[in-house]
């Protein structure tokens, strides 16, 4: 698998680290109850298909970015 780093261009996946689902939005400080935070922290959409996720180019520019990848095929659709 190759991943397009927004800064360095197309690089091998070995240079990157996965950072989890990027569609989750952290509740504001003090918002909601225990369930709000449980759902944010512990539950995953885990779709079989397109997934918006964080990656870090750890063995390169070390930039964090968001990538859209299809989890059913590993086809990478683009980064930003």
């Amino acid at each position, binding site marked *: *698998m190759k991943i397009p780093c927004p800064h360095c261009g197309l690089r*091998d*996946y*070995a240079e990157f*680290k*996965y950072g*989890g689902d990027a569609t989750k939005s952290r509740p504001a400080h003090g918002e909601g109850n*225990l*369930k709000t935070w*449980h*759902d944010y*922290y*512990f*539950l*995953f*959409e*885990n*779709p*079989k298909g397109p*997934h918006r*996720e964080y990656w870090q180019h750890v063995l390169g520019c070390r930039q964090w970015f968001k990538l859209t990848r299809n*989890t*059913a*095929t*590993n086809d990478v659709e683009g980064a930003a």
Partner: protein
Amino acid sequence: MSNRYSAFALARHALQPDLPWPRAWASPEPKPSYDVVIVGGGGHGLATAHYLAKNHGIKNVAVLERSYIGSGNVGRNTTIIRSNYMIGGNTAFFEHSLKLWEGLSHELNFNCMVSHRGQIVLAASPGQIDQFARRGNIMRLNGIDAELLDRSEVMKLLPYLDYSKDARFPIWGGILQKRAGTARHDAVAWGYGRSADQQGVHIIENCEVTGFVMENGKAVGVETSRGRITAGKIGIAVAGHTSHVAKMAGLKLPVESHILQAFVTEPIKPVVHHVVSWGAELFYLSQSDKGGLVFGGHIDGFNTYTQRGQFPQVRTVAECAVSLMPFVSRLRLLRHWGGIQDMTPDGSPFICKTPVKNLYLNGGWCYQGFKATPASGWTFAHTIAHDDEHELNRCFSLDRFEKGGELDEHGLGNWTWKQ
């Protein structure tokens, strides 16, 4: 019973080569309704059906398998069985599983080739020896066998490891569980399937569940590629695809799907007589009866449903093998493959009721699904039959994160991809 396997049956078939062996399980058309429908015909689903019939007398059961029996993770693991856990909730459960393994071939009348060859986990630092001593003490307090080994004892048992001054990670000792070992994974699926079938369970292959039928918030049936099937109770046992199936019932779970790779070398003469695991990096290796070294390591590290591994992990696991056992560098890799596993935030599974009435969940197995197969089926059958968790799986509930009941055996925190 005419289709019971025995030495006599073997002799009879040897003398009458034209007499075909009966099919191990039938291929029935699905009925419109069952008392219990199990989604997923893997090891756990088939074991659940077996124990529903055997322990609870519930025989009007269907197991629905999207593909064929043995096509999923039950045929993709590295076949290790053990019970060296130390967190309350895990310890008793996995020991119960190992006890069921001990009598499984007789119980199923199917040779599961259970081999108690022992598992040795190697310590790569003095700190790990202390940690293993603690683990061993907790195991022994729970009636589980554990022996702490020093370096010289490990050298006697495993003379082929790298003990040189140049070893990247020196071997300080290890912990041995003699009752641990391996089993033939295909036979486990076939044995449970055949036994369930003989007790009246319908095993329906090539039948994909495409949705759940709900009435007043209760699950009352499933839509499948072979029509609608109504059910009194429904159990999900599809680890790897748990999120995907549970979503059809409106559930969002603490599960992410990740790929774990496994590897087999070309066959060689017997040299590795135990299951060997390593403390320096997650790495485990045993030698199959055919002679190939079977080994594996960590997951690739990102969520995916593709059963294709990435090369960097092949390299990492091969490096582990060679730095621990230098002779492996002269072997060729024969096959490698991937399986999709449910990763949970604490590395522990779910065997529980769900917020949807009449719908039960078995999943989230992380690295430990195969060894758990007997106890998983045993407790899941209890949970379905009694609409209540058994004492052995009470800690594996879906709401444990809300209640502070994480079972983080490795102390890694809430990272599915780091467990």
